[in-house]
């Protein structure tokens, strides 16, 4: 099996007056694990349903491999979809579920059974072939759904938040399994999720969507470290946001005047003086600055609360009337005694200056 490339050209979807997906160009490379990440209602499921063929785009063409599939129904596309609720057939046994796609293709029963057993082996479910889906645990049902989708040897596997019903431990385990299956089979995976953790841990590349538009398509590291828009910056991971105005630019850096002080950050959008700007700093990039004059940006803040998260301590502060969050690694007892007024700071390289825009939390 080898995954095919999926290409959306100027694809848009409108339902009456509502535009679910604005005209979009997107290329998903063959054999990659691609995630579409976004809040609910952002249009990610609509894109998935257009790729799978359940929705016909209002405009644009969809290509899978070398073929234009825009006018094909879901039963004639080289895709397989794993539903959010899995949609296993409750009245069929596990192996009949897995072999359903083969049954639809007229494969003889003995061959179907053999293929089903093979696939159940692949998803680590041997010996469960004759059970009913209801007799399986959540994680096992998940694997059956994967096996059922793989049975039709799709070029592209589409996954619609299939892990959302599982508990945390199982979810983390299944992430690894899905990733392993993707490596083993080489199929293109298109994974829809609103959970950034899932997207970051499993994917090769991620597209972040908001309100029917793709905000950024990039590798996971780039999405986290170099978000392209304020929305991506605040939707993926946590960010401290300082709003302000650019007061100076130099060497790819910008100085921003904010209510909490003047800070320098990487001028990613190439802003000019007087531009409205937002400066983003990850909580883990903020450190205590007392006695560290080499830290570029420094500010005074009042500690309001400390939450012990385990590996780190979540410190909530307030500076210039704005909340600031800082993660302190749980080493020694520095964090435990943190109180009152503190001097904190962050390096200019760890701060990102972007053109002011919509944040994920708004």
């Amino acid at each position: 099996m080898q995954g095919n490339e999926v290409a959306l050209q100027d694809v848009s979807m409108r339902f009456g007056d509502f535009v679910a997906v604005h005209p979009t160009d997107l290329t998903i490379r063959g054999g990659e694990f691609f995630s579409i990440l976004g809040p609910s209602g952002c249009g990610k499921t609509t894109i998935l349903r257009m790729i799978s063929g359940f929705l016909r785009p209002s405009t644009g063409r969809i290509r899978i491999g070398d073929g234009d599939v825009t006018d094909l129904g879901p039963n004639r596309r080289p895709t397989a979809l794993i539903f959010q609720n899995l949609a296993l057939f409750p009245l069929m046994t596990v192996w009949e579920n897995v072999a359903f796609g083969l049954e639809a293709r007229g494969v003889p029963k003995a061959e179907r059974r053999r293929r089903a057993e093979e696939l159940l082996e692949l998803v680590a479910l041997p010996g469960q072939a004759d059970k009913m889906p209801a007799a399986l645990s959540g994680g096992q049902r998940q694997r059956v759904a994967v096996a059922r989708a793989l049975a039709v040897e799709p070029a592209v596997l589409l996954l619609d938040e299939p892990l959302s019903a599982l508990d945390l431990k199982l979810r983390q385990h299944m992430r690894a399994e899905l990733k392993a299956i993707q490596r083993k089979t080489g199929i293109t995976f298109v994974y829809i999720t609103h959970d950034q953790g899932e997207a970051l841990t499993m994917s090769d590349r991620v597209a972040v969507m908001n309100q029917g538009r793709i905000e950024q398509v990039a590798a996971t590291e780039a999405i986290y470290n170099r978000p392209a828009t304020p929305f991506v910056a605040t939707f993926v991971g946590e960010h401290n946001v300082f709003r302000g105005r650019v007061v100076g630019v130099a060497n790819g850096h910008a100085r921003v005047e904010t209510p909490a002080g003047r800070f320098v950050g990487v001028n990613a959008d190439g802003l000019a003086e007087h531009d409205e700007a937002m400066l983003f700093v990850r909580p883990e990039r903020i450190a205590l600055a007392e006695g560290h004059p080499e830290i570029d940006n420094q500010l005074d803040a009042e500690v309001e609360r400390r939450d012990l998260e385990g590996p780190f301590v979540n410190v909530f502060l307030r500076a210039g009337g704005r909340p600031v969050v800082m993660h302190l690694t749980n080493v020694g007892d520095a964090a435990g005694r943190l109180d009152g007024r503190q001097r904190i700071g962050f390096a200019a390289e760890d701060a990102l200056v972007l053109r002011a825009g919509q944040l994920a939390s708004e």
Partner: protein
Amino acid sequence: MSNLTRTYGPFLTGLVLLLTGVWIIALIILPQVNLIDRAFVYVPRGGEAQQAALELERAQQRIATIDFDIRATEKEIAQAASGGGSAGAGGAPSPSNPFAPGAKIGSSNVVRPGMPTPGLAPPAAPPEQRLKTLETERAELQGQLGGLKERADRLKAEQQAATGYSLRNFTTMSGLHWRIFGMTLVYSFSVTVLCFLVCYPIAYAVAQTRSPERVALLMLGLVIPYAINELLRIFAWVMILANRGILNQLLDTLGILDLAQGEAVHWVASNGAVFCVMIYAYILFMVFPIYNTIETLDRNQIEAARDLGASTWRIHWRVVLPHAKPGIAVGSIMTFMLSAGSISVPGLVGPGLHPDWFSQIIYRNYFEAGNWNIGSAQALLLLVACTLFILAVMSLFRVSVREIAR
């Protein structure tokens, strides 16, 4: 129980239990017990014993008539001997002359319709000869009387011994009635299957409709005809299917047939018309259970099957139909029972023109022949057949009573 009293108080609980008890006993148990009791009691009507009793009675009456004639003839002879030529002018009325006063009263007292009328002996023969003939006949009859009486008594005794619980109501049912019984089951089954074929697409379409307004509209369209009295609904169909009804007039307008020439398709003369009206009459009983089950089907399952490459036919066969099985079972059971027991539809749509339904036979036994015992036996037969049908459907569809109740 204690839970009930705690929730509703002793008075309300008692009342509810009382009403439930009355309901169960008066409306379910007693009628059924009565029906079963009647079905197994054979009340002979007609038959050999009746025939023998009738023959005996006839013989006795004939003897009485002959006695009368003998007396009259003897009197005639006596008069002839004393009064000469004025014979028959006065005196005792002669049975030969029905217009004579007294003869009428006398004969109407004895003679019943269908009995040989006295005085048929040829009046031309001389009285002595007539007397002789009558006496011979009387002696002959008298001789037979003993045998007849013995036979009638024996048969009556046999009959009395036979009355009481027996299977004779069933065993004496004519072959024709058995045939009608069998055909009624076949008809009802056909109605059920046709009704399913009509209702499944409707139920599926309604269940798949996403907009609530359209569902409401479709449902309203199905329910509105049921606001009309059942008989009116049937008569509406009679109006459509009658020889000079709407359908034939439509064909006339289209030039397919000429009503003026007396050409007409006799729709109501076939069971097709009965089937058609029954499907219309019972469509809701099939649509709603199927709709209710399909409604609960996760649409993702249909999409998943489609995504895996299944054709529409396979999606229905493997995913939708298995899911709708309990609904289909309930709908089939209801439609079958209603059609097998329907009296109004076969009774009003071309009665006597299409083959009889068993329900019509039962009706006639109850209300025309007045033979409730045979009627009960036939009703019981139908009840058993329907019960067997329910059990067969339940095992065929592998659904339990609990699923059906759902």
